[in-house]
């Protein structure tokens, strides 16, 4: 018992529960919004990239290459520090918006490649079958191709989502308080690295466990309807 307190003093951690809760909430919220952006962007970009039209696939390919060849921190900095006031918004993006958009656009490039692989794995016959019953392109995608494609690549998408969640700690560089910030607070105020960082790790593990069960559920649902 004594050596546990020596190694990890949960009495100290208990004093910081409000900070960890705030950080955990912030990380979950940022990740969720970035995930929604990345999946939407990823799906659109994947479809664009598979188009025969140059005006569609070239910009999509350029986006994917540009994102994959530069570090996420630089992308966050560019969006936060160099973007001027946006015309629609009438002001500059604040740190939370900038961080979420940067994260979403970054993950979107990776997601699009995964989704593209999923779409390509759907056999030609299914598309032709859908065509023959008179489905339009959008209907084919919506009801035949995408549900199966997403279900098939769900484990890979989950892996990429785990990366996204861990990457979300980089938004602290532009002044957003998140989970890692809570760990750092314990480290800075108390100089106790284990109490700070292991708690952060445990929180990330908890998010991952929740996500794992959600994906299993979603995959079963999608797999069922696509049958």
């Amino acid at each position, binding site marked *: 018992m004594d050596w546990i307190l020596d190694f990890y003093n949960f009495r100290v951690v208990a004093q910081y529960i409000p900070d960890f809760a705030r950080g955990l909430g912030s990380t979950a919220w940022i990740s969720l919004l970035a995930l929604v952006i990345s999946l939407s962007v990823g799906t659109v970009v994947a479809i664009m990239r598979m188009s025969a039209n140059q005006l569609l696939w070239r910009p999509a390919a350029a986006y994917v290459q540009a994102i994959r060849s530069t570090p996420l921190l630089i992308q966050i900095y560019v969006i936060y520090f160099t973007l001027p006031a946006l015309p629609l918004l009438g002001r500059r993006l604040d740190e939370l918006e900038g961080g979420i958009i940067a994260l979403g656009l970054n993950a979107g490039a990776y997601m699009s490649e995964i989704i593209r692989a999923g779409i390509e794995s759907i056999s030609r016959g299914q598309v032709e079958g859908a065509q023959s019953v008179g489905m339009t392109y959008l209907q084919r995608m919506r009801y035949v191709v995408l549900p199966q494609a997403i279900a098939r690549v769900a484990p890979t998408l989950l892996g990429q989502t785990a990366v996204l969640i861990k990457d979300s700690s980089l938004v602290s560089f532009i*002044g957003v308080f998140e989970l890692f*910030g809570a760990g750092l*607070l314990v*480290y800075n105020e108390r100089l106790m690295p284990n109490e700070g960082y292991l708690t952060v790790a445990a929180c990330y593990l908890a998010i991952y*466990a929740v996500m794992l069960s959600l994906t299993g559920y979603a995959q079963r649902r999608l797999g069922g309807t696509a049958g």
Partner: protein
Amino acid sequence: MRKITKLLGLGLCALGMSAVAQSASADVLKDIVKRGELRVAVQTQGPPVSFVDKNGERTGFAIEVVKMMAKDMGVELKLLDYDWKGLIPAVNSGKADFLAADMTPNAKRTLVLSFTEPYLYSDVVLYSKKSQSFVKWQDACKGGVSIGAVQGSSNVGLLKKKCPDSTIKEFAGGGAAVAQAVAADRADAGINDIASAAGYMIEYPEFKVLDGAPKRWPLSFATRPDENHLLRWMDNYFMLIRNDGRLETLADYWMRGPTWKKDH
């Protein structure tokens, strides 16, 4: 899930055992003399405390003090460069004999590490762009003004106390990241020690330092709590170099003006 829990448990046990194994040590000063090498954990927080100069050499106020220490001990110096997050583990695990940074002791930190007597007191100042109307630091302490600080630093707590109405923005990535945020109009003002702020004034000609100092922080080196002899040695050393004027000379050169800029 059960597998994950098992793995985690195993990992914790291994870490715990290594922590126990490392905690037993005798007088580290004897070890230093025996191995002929002083191992010091430092960080590269930027000029003038610790940085890599234009010749590619690691220098700065804290570094020069440590170099002098090793020379007077008659041993070689090995500087171990860590990020701020790695400094305390480096000292606790015994990889470094002590840490040399511009660290501020407080009641809670001193529970974990033994801090030396302060080798210097450093004023904290606020700075902003010249285009801002602030004159005194108090002018930035009002609603609608955002002040940038290093994430989790003592200055964050200070701002919360002294400027409760301002918005505090915490940036990871050190003082340079805060200065960048002020330059990009992402924060109206920034807070840092006076020596670092003086560095930003040269880097960003559009900056000004606001009058007055909300606080004066003591700066100390620190070692493991059981290293009494080493701690006494360091305190004694600071007393010696304070008395023979060498500490003042270094402080004047590095911390009280831009003199060092010419050479580094």
